[in-house]
């Protein structure tokens, strides 16, 4: 049958090449690509010519030049005034990632809690969550950043009257001086112990699931895993002689110094991004849970599952399928919103690279291009991860 069809197609009268739909679609696509390439080339060469005409230096050579200015927050990358503009880019990217990571982490926790609270049958909890969500998501984010920065953190006491929080360090208007962990010899073995504990946990969980599938017997996975992850590193810690100590801030002429200062710019931005994005996540979570039909809960109860188990084993896994795609957008939003840092001197990518570095070098086209591509890449990586997670969570039919 199929063979006959092919032969009849071959025997069909010859059509003009241009009228062949296959060839035609190829031609159109090639033309489209050529037009786009031509437009891009035109823009790039035009930009280069115009920049040269205006006497503006071009190229990416500036990235290896010495920056000459200081940056007050760089938790992982070693940065000094003698570092290059390339390092400035790294520091900016690092600070954007740090704020995005913590923001996403806390916003997710707060958002889930609020979303569940919005559905609570307890009237006070329900209404409080409702008011929180409605107020915070309807006030512009920039305003909220300013409120946290100027209305809350700027009112902390002066360095002289710092709040001394004992083992938690000190706090004043200049920063929160957290105790800085100092790792002595042997700290590495604690980290290795933690890694080993995690690997064993994964194996145990896999084995337990397999056994349950085969025999129906259950194994207390949660307690085993918690015990492993806490106890193994703890025991190692004491065996190798407590290799961790804390450096506390000391009082200098200008108030506390040392320790691990967390600037108020970071704190304000983190608070604002977290509390703002959490409202959207709360609504997404609420919608996700409501999307799971009431019959699912009833079916669970009929099977004898308790309310907690119903939520954990039945409702949440199904709700996640509805939650994940819009949640991805919120994560992307949070990452991009972190560029509002520029308003309060938190040295993120926009502020320190597309801001300070741009101004000191004047390489507007190159720097803005790099910054845009970086944000694009960050967003694409986040969505790729979330898509992978979504595929993993999606309905598997057996």
């Amino acid at each position, binding site marked *: 049958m199929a063979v006959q069809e092919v032969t009849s197609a071959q025997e069909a009268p010859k059509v003009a090449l241009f009228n062949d739909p296959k060839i035609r679609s190829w031609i159109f696509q090639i033309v489209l690509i050529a037009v786009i390439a031509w437009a891009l080339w035109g*823009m*790039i060469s*035009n*930009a280069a010519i*115009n*920049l040269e*005409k*205006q*006497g*503006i*230096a071009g190229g990416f050579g500036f990235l290896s030049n010495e920056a*000459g*200015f*200081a*940056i*007050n927050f760089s938790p992982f990358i070693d940065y000094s*005034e003698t570092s290059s503009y390339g390092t400035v880019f790294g520091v900016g990217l690092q600070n954007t990632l740090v704020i995005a990571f913590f923001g996403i982490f806390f916003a997710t926790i707060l958002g889930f809690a609020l979303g569940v609270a919005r559905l609570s049958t307890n009237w006070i909890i329900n209404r409080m969550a409702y008011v929180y969500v409605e107020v915070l998501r309807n006030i512009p984010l920039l305003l909220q950043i300013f409120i946290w920065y*100027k209305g809350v953190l*700027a*009112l902390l006491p*002066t*360095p002289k009257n710092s709040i001394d929080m004992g083992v938690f360090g000190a706090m*004043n*208007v*200049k920063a929160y001086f957290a105790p800085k962990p100092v790792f002595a010899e042997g700290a590495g073995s604690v980290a290795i112990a933690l890694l080993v504990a995690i690997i064993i946990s994964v194996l145990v969980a896999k084995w337990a699931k397999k056994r349950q599938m085969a025999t129906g017997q259950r194994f207390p996975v949660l307690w085993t895993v918690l015990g492993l992850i806490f106890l193994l590193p703890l025991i190692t810690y004491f065996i190798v002689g407590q290799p961790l100590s804390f450096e506390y801030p000391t009082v*200098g*002429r*200008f108030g506390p*110094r040392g320790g691990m*200062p967390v*600037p*108020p*710019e970071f704190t304000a931005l983190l608070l604002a991004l977290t509390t703002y994005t959490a409202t959207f996540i709360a609504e997404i979570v609420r919608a996700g849970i409501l999307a799971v039909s009431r019959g699912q809960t009833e079916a669970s109860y009929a099977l004898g599952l308790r309310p907690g188990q119903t939520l954990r084993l039945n409702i949440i896994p199904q709700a996640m399928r509805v939650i994940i795609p819009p949640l991805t957008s919120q994560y992307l939003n949070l990452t991009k919103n972190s560029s509002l840092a*520029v*308003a*309060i*001197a938190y*040295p993120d990518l926009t*502020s320190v690279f597309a*801001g*300070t570095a*741009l*101004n*000191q*070098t*004047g390489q*507007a*086209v190159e720097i*803005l291009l790099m910054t845009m591509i970086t944000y694009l890449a960050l967003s694409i990586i986040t969505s790729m991860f979330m898509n992978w997670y979504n595929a993993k969570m999606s309905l598997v039919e057996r």
Partner: protein
Amino acid sequence: MKLKILSAALGAVAFGAVSSASAATLDDIKAKGFVQCGVSQGLAGFSNPDDKGNWTGLDVDLCRGVAAAVFGSGDKVKFTPLSAKERFTALQSGEIDILSRNTTWTMSRDTQLGLNFAGVNYYDGQGFMVRKELKVSSALELSGASVCTNTGTTTELNVADYFRSNKLDYEIVAFEKADEVVSAYDAGRCDVFTTDQSGLAAQRLKLTNPADHVVLPEIISKEPLGPVVRQGDDQWFNIVKWVHNAMINAEELGVTQANVGEMMGSDNPAIKRLLGTEGAFGEKLGLGNDWAANVIKAVGNYGETFERNVGPNTQLKLPRGVNSLWSKGGLQYAPPIR
């Protein structure tokens, strides 16, 4: 605002809308009927809107002078407030015709940005301000301090150089807007506020208790502040340069806003050349021969604008110091008009 300018600039460079660099800025200005002048977002004495919304200040007067030279009236000028970060892009993209915004003349800015500095309107230097209660008497005692400043300024680089070369430990907190710097310093976020000395005098007025603060004696840099134009239009560059020179020459020759009318009848050949009653110096600039007379009618000579905006009788109380005429021991010196 900032994004708008940047994207406008990007768009302009990418799509070839930049004609201003090579075309005659003067013709464009004459066609549109006013000069577009980039100024600060509010720096008392230099460029600051008064309670009626009129821009005043030393930098503003230079723009008004340029407008008077072109149109005969110092009012044919529009002002664009710009942050330190936005200023060069705004000029490069053609959004403004002249940048008169307490901008330091440095080699890299002059050679890499496609811009030209048309003179020095104010000779300044960078200083530090601290709270009196800290009992700091020298910048060398500032080890461990947090320092507030503006991003995208020479200040930011100077302070890094100074603390590094003196082996002092410090934390920099750099804001984009000048007002943010002031409010952060006022709130105690920083121990030190650093900018040009003139800027310290002006911003101090915005603090809750100006008297609680003291400016340290060290001046750590040279900050020649002056007007900037785009590179590639020599005629416009010359106009701005010579308006500034004319104001200095006028002070040297004793021509003031009040007596410019009667000076028109002066016998002094230098004054006659300045005011256009002899020679055709204005024509060569593409202006009327009374260009300089119009400048002085509109804003006065350099000394008058200094006294009116930043001098000892103003809120800023800045001494004339190095900004005196060369003949009085200062640095302000203009080539002769001949």
